[in-house]
């Protein structure tokens, strides 16, 4: 039995996954065809039973079924065709470059600057690249040592110039250092790492391209760091759209039923159209309201406690992280066909905190042990390729292998680990 984690999307294979822009025409056409079939069906029923069905009923039923079909297609695309699979169960270690953000669709977003690069070091690379290429990036801020001035300067650049600046930092500064490129695959496309199909179905991120599209994301307003975007899944959007679908289905069925009853009972075509509309509106709204109350979209936000307080594994101790914390994130590596075709870890299946930020709001002023502990003895720059390999191996084993049903320990081991036994 595998570990439990929230998961609402399914990624699609390279070549199958696509953006909304690539599918909206087909989606609209299909919906119109289905709506037309529904209208035709309404007319046919009238013909079969020798009853005159008004245009209001025919068009209304068709429009509602077209909307239902369109929404079903959108949901299917958003949750099953939008993300392109690259590799499952991947690890990334690095520093959180901003506070986690709760997105509208319910996901919670973590932006990671990959190990072994501390944010301060990467910031100096920006200053160096600007100074080395004044023709391309201008003279730079007055004071390169002032991080805010540097951030403001970079933020004011045009998007294409800014992209090239970040790419130079990534390609010419970060990953040119021996032994420090073990997580390069998350910021630079490497065919051997991502596979031929994923490579061929992702945008060119080299300087050779007219408009290169890097794998990473940037937010110069928050920090100067090219980061890997990681998303913990919520299902607020799914809940919201499901409620709308329930309302639309109810409205469509109510419209058709009200029209049919009205026509068979009264035979007044003009009135039946309006009765159908009224029934659809009232019952559709009622169904949506009920569904919304039962299936509250706000309960689908990933930033909320996703377990019951009656959960035996939840002791009420909330874990929080902040900008600057060092962590290892375990999850699936995908490309989002929307949002500039960036690459992500999505969904996050596990978060392993390694070190708390040095810039917390508290500090030890007096340590009775005489040897105050460093806040972070295993700082991000100390992570070597071997560490990453070992940490990833252990995390993968913990996340993917079932715990042994029966376990034998020697007494000394059991006493040492008594705190974990029940």
């Amino acid at each position, binding site marked *: 039995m595998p570990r439990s*984690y929230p998961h609402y999307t399914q990624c699609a294979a390279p070549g199958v996954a696509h953006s909304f822009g690539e599918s909206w025409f087909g989606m609209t056409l299909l919906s119109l065809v289905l709506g037309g079939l529904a209208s035709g069906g309404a007319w046919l029923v009238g013909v079969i039973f020798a009853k005159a069905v008004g245009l209001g009923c025919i068009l209304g039923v068709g429009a509602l079924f077209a909307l239902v079909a369109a929404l079903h297609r959108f949901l299917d695309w958003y949750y099953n065709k939008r993300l392109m699979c690259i590799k499952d169960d991947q690890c990334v270690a690095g520093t959180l470059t901003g506070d986690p953000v709760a997105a509208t669709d319910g996901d919670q977003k973590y932006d990671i600057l990959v190990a072994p690069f501390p944010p301060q070091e990467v910031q100096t690379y920006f200053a160096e690249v600007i100074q080395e290429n004044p023709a391309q990036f201008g003279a730079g801020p007055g004071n390169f040592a002032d991080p805010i001035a540097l951030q403001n300067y970079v933020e004011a650049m045009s998007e294409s110039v800014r992209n090239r600046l970040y790419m130079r930092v990534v390609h010419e500064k970060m990953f040119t250092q021996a032994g420090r490129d073990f997580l390069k695959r998350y910021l630079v496309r490497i065919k051997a790492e991502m596979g031929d199909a994923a490579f061929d179905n992702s945008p060119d991120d080299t300087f050779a391209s007219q408009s290169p599209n890097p794998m990473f994301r940037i937010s110069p307003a928050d920090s100067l760091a090219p980061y890997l975007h990681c998303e913990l899944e919520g299902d607020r959007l799914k809940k919201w759209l499901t409620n709308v679908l329930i309302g639309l289905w109810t409205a469509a069925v109510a419209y058709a039923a009200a029209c049919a009853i009205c026509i068979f009972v009264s035979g007044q075509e003009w009135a039946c159209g309006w*009765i159908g509309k009224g029934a659809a509106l009232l019952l559709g709204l009622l169904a949506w309201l009920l569904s919304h109350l039962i299936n509250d979209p706000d309960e689908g936000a990933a930033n909320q406690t996703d377990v019951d307080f009656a959960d*035996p594994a*939840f002791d009420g101790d909330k874990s929080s992280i902040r900008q600057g914390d060092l962590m290892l994130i375990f999850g699936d590596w995908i490309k989002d066909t929307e949002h500039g075709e960036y690459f992500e870890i999505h969904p996050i299946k596990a978060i392993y905190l390694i070190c708390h930020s040095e810039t917390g709001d508290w500090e030890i002023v007096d340590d009775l042990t005489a040897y105050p502990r460093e806040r972070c003895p295993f700082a991000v720059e100390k992570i070597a390729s071997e560490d990453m390999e*070992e940490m990833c191996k252990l995390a993968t084993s913990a996340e993917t292998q079932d715990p042994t049903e029966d376990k034998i320990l020697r007494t000394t*081991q059991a006493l040492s680990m008594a705190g974990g036994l029940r």
Partner: protein
Amino acid sequence: MDCCNLDDPWFWIGLLIALLLLGLALLVLWLRWRKGRKEYEKQRCIEIPPDVVRRPDPCLYSQPYLMAKGLAVTWDNPDIQVTNLGGTPVPSSNLQPNTDYIVAATIHNASFDAALGVEVRCVYRPFSFGTPDRVPVEADANGNPAVRIVHIGPWGSAIAKFRWRTPASGGHFCLQVECYHPSDREPNNNVGQENTDVRTAASDVNLVIPLFNARARHAQAFIFANEYTIAEVDVRLRLHQIRGYKGIDRPTLRAAAGAGAGGSTEELMRAAERDALRGARIRLAPNAGGRGSRGVGYRVYGYDGFQQLSGNHALGGFSLRDGWTLDVDNARRQGDAWQLDVPPKDSLNVSLRLLVPDDAPAGQRKAVNIWATDRFGALLGGVTIHVRKGP
């Protein structure tokens, strides 16, 4: 029917409105019923959801933790090993002055989650109860304790090694190892000590152990002794589902929980909650692709085994036998213990005498643990003396 003209559109509109009002009334009733049954509240702030955050438990054989759990302990710590530079084990009671040794500390992880980036430090302390002095066995260029980083898999272990040059002045030292992790599920089992001595005695063993009171107020200390040693046998752990308190009020579950008819539902829930939070837990879901519905569809499991340990290693079960006794100078006898008073910010040299009976057979060996606690039962320190009855 005068009341119901089916040809009149207003009849249908009225019927729809009536149905709508009926539906709304039912909805209000249902919502009030549901609100009363709500079992938990959602938190409206950014946090890492508990089902993806991982909580390791780096630990070692920790005398303060085990004793607080009611278990007997030894200071012959199975997780702290001293070897010479060639790797041959050396008893910690037989170390030469100004000599290089390796201290190998085994750090375990009592959790289903991997422990990544565990910090380990090692210090030595003068032979005493409660001394505040701590000196790193290995220091960096600034004199700070050397830190080793280890990564440990679920229910696994890793070894951190320190190089130690013993002080030129010689003496008896206690080794202390501690580990640390920012997400530690149980931070109370992170410190362990190794403190042993070996004596051969024809009659009594005399010891003088300094007892420190670091507090600014008068302190009472209690000294105990027993002859507990760790008997190496297999301990079998079984993975079992932890139910928590869901459905605890059902008669079948009440009976299964051993609850009498008298317990209120609230009391049963609290008891089940306390029980559920013991030890490491893991959430598992039958769906390999994760769960597509929030907060439901998973089960919680843990390893049993603590009951077996507490049955075989209970603190009260290893009193000195065969006529061996402990005597403490200038102390009052309080049941099994000797009571001493220590002035504020001061220390005492406690004179202890382990009385070996004359009729004990020559060559008889005992490992005698002597320890001190404060009046709240918190451990101040201890030592294990390996005594051999001489001729």
